[in-house]
């Protein structure tokens, strides 16, 4: 178990002979070609998004740089300003390549932010349940179970219906839709850990429950939380895109990938496929690469499946 906690801890002194847990984890992770490629793709996507302002020909939301005359140009056309629009342009004349990179910034921000916040909140609630035990734990877990019996997409939809549009609101909606998955994960680990001898021994030694939760349960939930976190982040990105596509997520002023796809939808029936398809592919690569990484992380981090 201790080797999994080390995943999050940087290893200070790499000795030549003894393989540190982190090195072993790294070696095992890169054994899978698919996961390695997926991780590479995801990193490239992140880099593209981060450096968008420096590697795109236009800032698609600076009205001075966008010309309506460039509207709905097919891929490879030349823009009014002279550069080539390799992926074509959208209805209002924005270069799609630029719009996609800027859109990725928003989508990734929303996905990662809601993923991290939901993880922290879910983890905190799970730990509180584990710490408190008894009735409080039972009540918290009843709520978790009840919420998990409804699909996250439906919960998120109801939340945005109540909260309205906007980046902060959609993040809140996603957090509310997803916290329970993390709480359940913590609780599962807590159940396993509490049954173990060292926790019983710790209790006998009169060590405080606080210490048990933070020294024993918390480190051991890290690995499963990382796995759940990856998958849930992918699903948060996909969910945000879905909500934005439905028009109840982000507003036009925050054009995430989902908003771009929605904008292209009306042109699709007239054969101008690129306006929706290219942003769609960007979303696809993002979500699938995160999922593949998460899938493999599960195999590597799950000690039960290890031979």
């Amino acid at each position, binding site marked *: 178990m201790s080797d999994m906690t080390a995943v999050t801890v940087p290893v200070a002194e790499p000795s030549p002979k003894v393989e540190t847990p982190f090195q072993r984890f790294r070696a095992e992770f890169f054994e899978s070609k698919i996961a390695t490629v997926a991780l590479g793709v995801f990193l490239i996507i992140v880099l593209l998004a981060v450096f968008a302002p420096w590697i795109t020909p236009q800032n698609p939301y600076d009205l001075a740089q966008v010309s309506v005359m460039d509207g709905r140009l097919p891929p490879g056309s030349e823009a009014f300003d002279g550069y080539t629009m390799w992926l074509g342009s959208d209805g209002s004349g924005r270069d799609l390549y630029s719009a996609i990179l800027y859109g990725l910034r928003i989508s990734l921000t929303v996905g990662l932010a809601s993923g991290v916040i939901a993880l922290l909140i879910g983890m905190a609630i799970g730990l509180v349940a584990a710490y408190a035990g008894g009735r409080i734990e039972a009540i918290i877990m009843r709520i978790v179970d009840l919420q998990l019996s*409804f699909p996250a*997409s*439906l919960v998120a939809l109801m939340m945005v*219906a109540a909260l309205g549009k906007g980046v902060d609101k959609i993040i809140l909606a996603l957090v509310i839709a997803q916290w329970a998955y993390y709480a359940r994960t913590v609780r599962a680990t807590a159940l396993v850990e509490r049954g173990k001898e060292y926790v019983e021994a710790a209790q006998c030694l009169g060590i405080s429950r606080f210490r048990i939760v933070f020294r024993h349960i918390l480190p051991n939930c890290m690995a499963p939380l990382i796995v759940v976190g990856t998958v849930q982040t*992918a699903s948060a990105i996909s969910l945000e895109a879905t909500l934005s596509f*439905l028009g109840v997520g982000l507003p036009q002023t925050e054009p995430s990938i989902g908003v771009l*796809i929605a904008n292209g939808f009306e042109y699709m029936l007239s054969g101008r496929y690129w306006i929706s398809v290219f942003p769609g592919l960007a979303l696809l690569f993002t979500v699938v690469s995160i999922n593949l990484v998460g899938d493999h992380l599960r195999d590597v981090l799950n000690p039960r499946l290890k031979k």
Partner: protein
Amino acid sequence: MTVFIIRRLLQALLVVFMMSVIVFFGVNIVGDPVYMLVSPDADQADIEAAISRLGLDRPIWEQYGLFLKGAAQGDLGNSFIFGEPALKLILHHMPATMELAFSALFLAIVIGIPLGLYAGLYPDSRLSKGIMAASIFGFSLPTFWVGLMLIMLFAVELQWVPATGRGDLGSFLGIQSSIFTLDGLSHIFLPALNLALLKISLAIRLTRAGVREAMGLDYVKYARAKGLSTRRIIFVHVMKNIMIPVVTVMGLEFGSLIGFSVVTETIFAWPGMGKLLIDAILQLDRPVVVAYLMIIVLFFVLINLIVDILYSILDPRVRLQDQGA
């Protein structure tokens, strides 16, 4: 069995009651109840009239009592947009959604289970590996994007089927549905497939895992030792066992099909309650949103109950426990 059902019904009632508390107090605490229940373009006098008409000046417990009383009589408020009772609107749109969800469930079962069966029986064949790879995609691809691609491919490029809308209705055994006409079928095919995709992947994985587990178990080897035909072993001994988890999970997933139909109905302009919900959200028609929420909760609770009963019918081991109880 009766005891079991009665006990479960009481539990279900409790859940619905709890959810009504959450919905009601959620609406009252998260948002301004006036804003939530009165048309946004009402003026001050209207608002005051509404406040007293809706009893918003009374204590919150009393208000909840009124809400509950109305809900029990099937009154969940009137739609701002249509001026009709919200419940009636939703019930009116329900058949379209149900027929879509049932078609999707049907597709998931008739496509997913045979593919999963094959992948479980011949795990090393190339086709099986292809099936499993495809199912990973089925899991990761966002439903709405797949819907777009389906429209582009089958409706725009190939022009095999119409892209949007519901087709002509037909009638069979007194049930009205678009699946009883050719036009209706051609309309429902794409949305049903779109909605089913995720569940097809799920059915494949469940069936495959079940088959692989069962094939290694002693009872299969024993059945072979009795000289039974492969067909009987697979379709009676193995299937009867794996149908228990498959039916249970797929049944529970029916609820999420109805939830997900929001997306599919929007893309394919399918006139169901999901589309109604999105329109209601966009037009701030809050009574419809609240009514939808209550209906959906009721639905999930009902589905859970039905699946539990189904489970106890399918698995003889559960039945015994129940007799003891």
